[in-house]
């Protein structure tokens, strides 16, 4: 999904690519998990993103761009759920993968 989305965005932007700092091994793993599971609701223009835009504002809608997330908040929300987001079971997202997602999403918040 993410690869196809990225392809569409790249072609729309004429091949331009946003500068992204080098990710650690754990953050790379977190990005893989995000792209496999989270992106369907928290990618650009989809439900979770739209809900967050409504709850806060556009700057707080896209999780991958946030600069104010804490790892503990990410872990808690994934396991407990928030609003209409259901909790994620350990069999869906392992503790190690959840730590990786938290590391990836908080890379701009540290």
């Amino acid at each position, binding site marked *: 999904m993410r690869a196809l989305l990225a392809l569409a965005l790249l072609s729309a932007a004429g091949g331009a690519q946003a500068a992204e700092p080098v990710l650690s091994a754990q953050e790379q793993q977190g990005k893989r998990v995000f792209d496999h599971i989270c992106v369907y609701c928290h990618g650009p223009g989809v439900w979770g993103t739209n809900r967050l835009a409504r709850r806060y504002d556009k700057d707080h809608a896209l999780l991958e761009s946030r600069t104010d997330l804490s790892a503990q908040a990410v872990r808690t929300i994934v396991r407990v759920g928030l609003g209409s987001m259901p909790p*994620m*079971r350990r*069999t869906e997202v392992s503790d190690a993968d959840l730590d990786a997602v938290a590391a990836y999403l908080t890379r701009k918040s540290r």
Partner: protein
Amino acid sequence: MAQSPVRPPGVSEDSFQAALKAFAAIVGPEWVLVSEEDRHTYLDAFAPGNPDEHAASAAVAPKSAEEVQAIVKAANRYRIPLWPVSTGRNLAYGGSAPVLRGSVVLDLKRMNRVLEIDEELGYALVEPGVSFFDLFEALQAAGGKLWISTPAPGWGSVIGNALEHGLGYTPYGVHADTICGMEIVLPSGELVRTGMGAVQGTREWQIFKYGYGPVWDGLFTQSNFGVVTKMGVWLMPQPEAVAYVLVSLPNVDDLPVMVDTLRPLRLNDTINATYTITNPFRSIVDGFSAQGKSRADIYKGPGSIPLEVVTRELAAAGRGIWNATFNLFDRDKGLDLRLAAIQEAFAPVPGAKIQTRRWQRGQPFEQWMRVQPGLFALGIVDWYGGPGGHMNFAPVVAPIGRRVADLYDSIYKRFVEYGIDYYCGLLNVGPRALLVNAVMFFNRDDADLIRRGRELYRVLAQEGAAAGYGDYRAHISFMDAAADMYNYNGHALRALNERVKDALDPHGILAPGKQGIWPQGSRGNRGRT
């Protein structure tokens, strides 16, 4: 190991602890999930009411069919009811929560291998934890020559959705029809393969459903007779082209003519995939949820949203009152012929408008094609503001315009009486059947709305049965009510189901109460949920 305050009914503390120990010895202690945090993740996330009514006592998550066999044998030893889930995302039907409170969830999500993809013959062999996302990605990685048929939310299980009689929007959209060959762990712990799979070492398992002798696959759909650990699924070869069609009709009373015009086109395969007729209210909501809007943006009044408000919104958006959408799959020239036939059929219908889009192989996928799985549809659950959920009542009816409209209207009347907005889609299941899928949205913190929704379901089920209809699928809280609809000859079908259940599962350990099938020893629970 953490303690669970929830217990399987009739099981002593010692037996329960001994069972958990036995499970831990099979799957490893980290995959016996008992902590409060873990048990919370197995509650019905869209529960219409208190999710604790269907709380699991624990979950156990095997990695292989052999581990499933060992778990089932241990469950027999300690009389532990198991509730199998595949990806556990059957939301609006219970998610990963059991009918019977205190059951142990048998969570198959870790069994997530795509075991085989055959692009020449058009099939895959998968395990229960494989989601539509997983299979889509695997097929793309294999070369993209095969397409999946995905239901609206893509995080569900390919196996689970087919077993629950789910639907998609391609020519392969009746997912139970795409099943070819199963591997099943019986309640005794024995392992069986159906169809050609019963031939040791065969390569022909996924190409012929019937094998020799009775065809068993159907018995393991919407049932509690076994745990499906592998399944073959037929897949559509990538078509050369796809067309999207939107047919709009302008009048509130145009439902019969819509149904009667679509019926022959579907029956002769001009329309070669599932179509959806959205009622006026749904036509607004589907547009709104994509924008993150909800009910308060157009209406703040009590009760069921008035039809005048709905039609005014649709007129402002330039949309028809009744809208049917579907995709056609063919070569480009074939699509031209199909579209011409559809135009011709609707030409005599006053005010009919047809809009189309096209895709050809080599172009990027677009959302309307519904080829890529997504979660776009989920936004609708926040219709009342959220955190939301929904219940469904979806009786099966023949696509005969007057008959459909009478059923639709009778349901509408009750929605208005119970003060609930009437979100309804009519989907065909093959050419000869429609589901009138009436959806009751609610906010999970609105006890009054939930109470009315639950009462509404029961009234609709009773009235539906009296008129000769049956629901095709039900939430864990309504499984007995839905089974009650199938009442010919004193519920003879249920009696047969339960005779089979007792023969296969004498200790009643597998999913008691699923589809209203209760094992001997726990039939006293019937109707309690």
